[in-house]
């Protein structure tokens, strides 16, 4: 192996309540396309951000071409030839493409911006990526794919030798993704080193020559892609065989119908979706990003004003115009983004757990603190929270935070739970506990709608799985029919 272009040496990074990376070391060869993969929360994005100067490592560091670098900002990284293409695009939406591309070095004549030179400079940069974008358009009017191209153009234009792609295809359509792959291959032909952060197997095998696996913030392996099988890679990512990683499923008897939706539609999100969930059942909802899974969950919880169709809760027609309506009907919702939607990080665990139901522990608006503490403590022991109820929610680990969100709906005695990616970003141990909890809730008679991007999770927990593609229900697989392969085919529309 030649002198590495990038060398991570003992990188450790801590965030409040968690260790994101622990002593990670590996090399990236020049001109390679190097995948960094791992489960959600494995630390792969954090690693990319450290290289790009967004975060700083607490211990250890990064070498580029054998020289130790310490970037204080993405600007520093860019000056050293390292750029990042990511979802939260760092552009000024209110300025034009040309302004954004040349922001740090606007061409001037006598102190006035030279618009002609600026446009030419932007066109030259965009040409390097083959992008057909008018430089005078406002950044905010571009699609995500176009914004990515502008980002890559900016990176290449700044002379980047290393480009980090952080899940670049997660919000792209197939055609757009193909164009991105072509561009990446072209960049590789020009000797640009690429780090590709993703957990999508097909992309890794199609694009990359080397792959590094991270698990729970620790380095597992760095190896050539050639000769590797998907199964072996998955094993490295989750740390054990699929079989013993998930709990045994309790086949609870199917009870009364708890939820039925008919001809559920929301323009641009999903269309004509009908299904039912019974007591004692975990119904899985599978689909690729953008297939409409989370959108259905939000609509069920009264968060989508433009939804049409009929909803029946316990066989009675229900109006779900706000989360309060849903709450009154005994529904609980564990949203996708627990930090933004699930928790009030400034409050403590107990205050979060009793937030929707505080008035139950109050008389005349006056909180009975004993009752509140007792209810929270009981819910916390039932979800096996491994932290004190008075700790600030912001200080808890991902797993404990998710347990607090679950405790919130336990306290509310919700019989109908909508769980949207309940184990995202949660470490393996906590994940197993959450799985066992979901299984036991269903066995105890709760009706659960489970949305997950992790197929093994759905396969292990769900009584049956509904598959969505492009906003429509494309099929339903019973527990016996369902397999990773069958699901993927339905999700991707491979017939």
């Amino acid at each position, binding site marked *: 192996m030649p002198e590495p272009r990038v060398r991570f040496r003992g990188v450790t990074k*801590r*965030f*409040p*309540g*968690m*260790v994101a990376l622990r002593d990670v070391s590996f090399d990236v060869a020049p001109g390679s396309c190097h995948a960094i993969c791992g489960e959600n929360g494995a630390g792969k994005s954090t690693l990319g951000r450290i290289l790009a100067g967004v975060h700083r490592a607490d211990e250890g560091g990064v070498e580029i071409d054998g020289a130790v670098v310490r970037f204080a900002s993405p600007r520093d990284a860019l000056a050293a030839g390292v750029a990042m293409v990511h979802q939260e695009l760092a552009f000024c939406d209110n300025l034009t493409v040309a302004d954004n591309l040349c922001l740090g070095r606007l061409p001037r004549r006598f102190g006035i911006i030279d618009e002609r030179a600026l446009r030419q400079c932007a066109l030259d940069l965009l040409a390097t990526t083959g992008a057909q974008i008018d430089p005078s358009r406002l950044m905010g009017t571009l699609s995500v794919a176009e914004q990515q191209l502008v980002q890559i153009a900016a990176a290449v234009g700044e002379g980047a030798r290393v480009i980090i792609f952080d899940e670049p295809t997660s919000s792209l359509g197939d055609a757009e993704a193909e164009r991105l792959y072509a561009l990446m291959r072209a960049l590789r032909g020009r000797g640009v080193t690429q780090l590709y952060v993703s957990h999508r197997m097909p992309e890794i095998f199609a694009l990359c020559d080397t792959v590094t696996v991270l698990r729970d913030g620790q380095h597992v392996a760095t190896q050539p892609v050639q000769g590797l099988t998907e199964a072996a890679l998955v094993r490295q990512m989750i740390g054990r065989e699929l079989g013993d990683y998930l709990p045994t499923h309790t086949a609870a008897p199917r009870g009364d119908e708890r939820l039925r939706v008919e001809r559920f539609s929301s323009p641009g999100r999903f269309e004509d979706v009908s299904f039912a969930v019974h007591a004692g059942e975990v119904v899985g909802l599978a689909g690729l990003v953008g297939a409409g899974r989370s959108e259905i969950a939000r609509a069920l*919880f009264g*968060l989508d004003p433009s939804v049409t169709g009929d909803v029946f809760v316990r066989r009675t027609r229900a109006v779900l115009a*706000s*989360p*309060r309506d*849903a*709450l009154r009907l005994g529904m609980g*919702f564990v*949203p996708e983004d627990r930090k*933004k*939607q*699930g*928790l*009030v*990080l*400034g*409050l403590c665990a*107990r*205050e979060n757990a009793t*937030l*929707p139901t*505080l*008035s139950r522990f*109050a008389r005349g*608006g*006056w*909180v009975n*603190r004993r009752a509140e*503490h*007792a209810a929270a*403590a*009981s819910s916390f*022991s*039932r979800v*096996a*929270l*491994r932290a*004190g*109820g*008075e700790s600030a929610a912001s*200080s808890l*680990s991902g797993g404990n935070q998710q347990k607090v969100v679950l405790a*919130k709906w336990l306290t509310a005695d919700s019989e109908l739970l909508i769980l949207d990616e309940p184990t995202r970003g949660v470490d393996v141990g906590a994940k197993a506990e959450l799985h*066992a*909890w979901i299984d*036991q809730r269903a066995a105890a008679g709760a009706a659960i709608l489970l949305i997950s991007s992790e197929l093994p999770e759905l396969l292990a927990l769900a009584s049956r799985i509904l598959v969505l593609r492009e906003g429509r229900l494309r099929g339903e697989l019973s527990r016996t029919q369902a397999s990773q392969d069958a699901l993927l085919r339905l999700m991707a529309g491979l017939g």
Partner: protein
Amino acid sequence: MFPLGADPRADLILPRHHVTDPTSPPTLAQRAWRAALRSPQLGLLLVLFVLATALTLAAGSHVDPQSGRMINNFLNQYTLIQMATDASAFAIMGVGATLVIIAGGIDLSVGAIYALAGVVMAMVLRAAGPLPPGLTLVLGLGTCLAVSLLAGLANGTMVIGLGVHPFIITLGTMWILRGIAFVVSRAESILVPASLTAVAKAPLGLGTALYPVPLLGMLAVTAAGGIYLSRTVMGRHVFAVGGNAEASRFSGLNVPRITLGVFVLSGLTAGFAAFLGAAFYGSATSSDANGYELYVIASAVVGGASLSGGKGSAISAMLGAVLIVTMRQAIRTLHLDQNYEWIIIGTALIIAVVLDQRGAKLLTERLARDA
């Protein structure tokens, strides 16, 4: 931890703030001392204590003409009560402002609500003619609270209904309400009945020229605000909405109603302050409480309220008001040039907030290290 299922020992695993040795229960004094050390007001109290001590030492003293004893120029009952009276308007409205700020908003209109409520009360009482003292009190207080309730409702309704940032809405109503006060009063200073002044200046057993009623009003509003925030469902919801409005909505909270509630309460504190002020000084004009909104917000912020929401305390807001008034008093007591008042207060405000934020950052870093 316990396995799944209800735990019969739930009472035993109630979270505790600190571990105590069961063999020797702490004495009351020990517990008070520990509570003080943990108190979020510790920093403010220390600053106030240091400032008051320095002032006492630097102020010098004079001979009291009545008793013939030496009296400190700062640490004497007249100055302290006067300061409490000055602080009471800021503190009472500061408690209201703190609610709004915790909920993630801001209310710039409290000074104008104060002026309008005072003017309308004075006009209503003038129009009503002579009344028995009890009725004057009820009518006066009722008018002030009614006017300020309507003003708060207007603020809250517009913030919710128009979807415009509260800064803009209350900046607008700040001018509108003061303009209404100006027009209806024709810019006159209107006297209020002497029976009201008698109440506001009741000595309550203290010596002559010592008026504790504004001080008591301040303490009462602070206590009510503190209890509201820490012990009621609404109070908890205020913190939740300011901390994360989206998660609050996802938890089924009625976010618009909570927003409306804080603006109404903020208005009511202005109305109450107006009642005390007009009664105490014996008159009301449309230019009363001009610029108070900034002192009020400064009190809340010096008291640690975060303008990004989710953080703040009623007691701290009161202490913030007391601190600002103490700094103003320092300028008078030390015979500094009065023209420097704004420079000093502005500087102190920035220093206080920077110190508060640095403290929070240090705490976050420590949490990260402990992980």
